[in-house]
């Protein structure tokens, strides 16, 4: 992302009425007014709430940093963090690696029907998370799901994907990979298309094979894009809510095996109405995401300057 503003040459000083001095401020003011009320104020307010014991019904009681202290030894919070990281470790490589693989293939001019394939891979992106989760809960169901039918026909045992604790994260991984691989594909394709094809062609003429071109030319040039995508996937994973909510409900499923941070945050704040505790949790998660966004911005800036 380009943070620097290009200096515009001044044309026609046009010293008219003060309107054209005032106009730009008027034009940008709606953003700042709305942001002050619904963006900045909540952040400050949230910080204060997080220092209070505040449930929906009772008035807030100031308790200092106790919410934060309790959070760091809250088994649910630690479990949610752990589950989220595990989810990320599996879905990240799949979506990013898969997206890159598909992008490299679709960037190859020898491959035909590229537009058709691309359209197919983008299709899941238009589906809402709720719809996607519903369809997967049907597909993965036991015994009436299509997955289990395939397993049974292949001679395997039927599996209770949705209630077997050890499979909860796997279910989320499958759903996320299906839903988001198109997103990574968009990013990777945009990155690949900015690499001049002559580079690879020159190397091929010099006797390099396709694999060498990929490892020694394409991949190094794609590094900033891949980094950007990694950060993006990380942030997205920390915000995942609708999928586990649909598949495992607010409880997080059997033995909370599907409990991720987004689910716990919602549950704390809006099922139990622990506003103080929820705000403290949001702050800790926000801090993690903020640090990641900083990296993302840095990487993105470097990318556009290139």
């Amino acid at each position, binding site marked *: *992302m380009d*943070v*620097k*503003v290009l200096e*515009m040459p001044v044309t*026609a000083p*046009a010293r008219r009425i003060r*309107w*054209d001095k005032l106009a*730009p401020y008027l*034009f*940008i003011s*709606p953003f*700042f007014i709305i942001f002050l*009320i*619904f*963006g900045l*104020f*909540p*952040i400050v*307010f949230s910080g204060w*709430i997080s220092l209070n014991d505040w449930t929906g019904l009772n008035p807030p009681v100031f308790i200092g940093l106790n919410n934060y202290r309790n959070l760091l030894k809250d088994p649910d919070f630690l479990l949610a963090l752990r589950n989220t990281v595990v989810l990320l470790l599996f879905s990240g490589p799949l979506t990013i690696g898969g997206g890159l*693989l598909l992008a490299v*293939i*679709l960037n190859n001019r020898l*491959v035909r029907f590229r537009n058709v394939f691309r359209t*197919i891979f*983008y299709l*899941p992106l*238009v589906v*809402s998370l*709720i*719809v996607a989760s*519903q*369809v*997967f809960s*049907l*597909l993965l169901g036991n015994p*009436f799901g299509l997955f289990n*039918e395939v397993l*049974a026909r292949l001679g395997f045992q039927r599996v209770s994907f949705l209630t077997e604790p050890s499979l909860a994260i796997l279910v989320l991984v499958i759903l996320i990979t*299906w839903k988001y*691989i198109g*997103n990574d594909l*968009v*990013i990777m394709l*945009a990155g690949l298309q900015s690499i001049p094809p002559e580079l690879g062609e020159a190397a091929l003429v010099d006797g390099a094979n396709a694999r060498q071109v990929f490892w020694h030319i394409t991949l190094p040039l794609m590094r900033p894009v891949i980094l950007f995508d990694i950060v*993006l996937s990380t942030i997205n994973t920390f*915000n995942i809510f*609708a999928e586990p909510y649909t598949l495992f409900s607010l409880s997080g499923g059997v033995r909370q095996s599907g409990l991720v941070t987004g689910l716990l945050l919602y549950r704390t*704040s*809006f099922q139990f109405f622990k*506003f103080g505790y*929820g*705000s403290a949790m949001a*702050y800790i*998660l*926000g801090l993690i995401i*903020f640090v990641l966004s900083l990296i993302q*911005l840095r990487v993105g800036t470097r990318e556009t300057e290139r």
Partner: protein
Amino acid sequence: MRETSVHIADRRAQRLALGALYVILVVAAFLSLVPFYWMLISSFKPLNDILTIPVTLVPPRPTLENYQLLLTQTKFAQSMFNTLFVAGVNVLLQTFLCSLAGFAFAKYRFRWRNLLFTLVLGTVMIPASVQLVPNYILMANIGWLDTWLPLIIPTAANAFGIFWMRQYMYSVPDELLDAGRLDGASEFGLYWRIVLPVTRPALGALALFVFTTSWNEFLLPLVYLRSEERYTVQLLISNIFRQRFQQNFHLLMAASVLAIIPMTILFATVQRQFIAGLTLGSLKE
């Protein structure tokens, strides 16, 4: 002689490699499409045929009953209408405000411009999850709970939209604006009559992005909406799933099909802008 045999081997290797690529593509495309197919055929099956072993790949007794039930027994049609309204307002409001601000940042020199623009971009880094609780308390206190306003007003401050529009505004020639000024157009008139028509493609991509986000939004409706007659379509689908104790997959799949129809139509008709919008969206998330 040797050369040619190497060439033939090369070509054969190339064809083999290309074949492998097609296999990957076809398998991936198949996996991509299976859930769509399953959603579609399940929506035409009576519940008994959905919950049966062995699973049937083609509906043995296709019926439109699910759709009929959905439209008569639930508030689904109403929720489609609600979502369309909310998404429509979001599109109008955000394209207007973003292009206006983008215009100001690109085409005016004013004090603190750079600082203000950096501030706009900086707002993107604030994690939305932190705003959820305080905004809920705020909305409760100003009486906005169970209205669509929390789904519309806060999202109107769209920093990425401003960034996006600003980039396009640079391509508007200053001479065009100066000519407009000479003709006596007001500053807002310049924006309305000169800038807006020129930047239509960028506006289109932004509009699509806003529409998709708004149509698929789930968390905000879940937090703020209470009365069923105000539900958005995502919230309604989610509630069909959890309200009752029996299985509702027949209704769910019919609802899913209808809920993705507007998006699919948009996607099919304006694919190019859509992809631009997706790229914009991937930057945002």
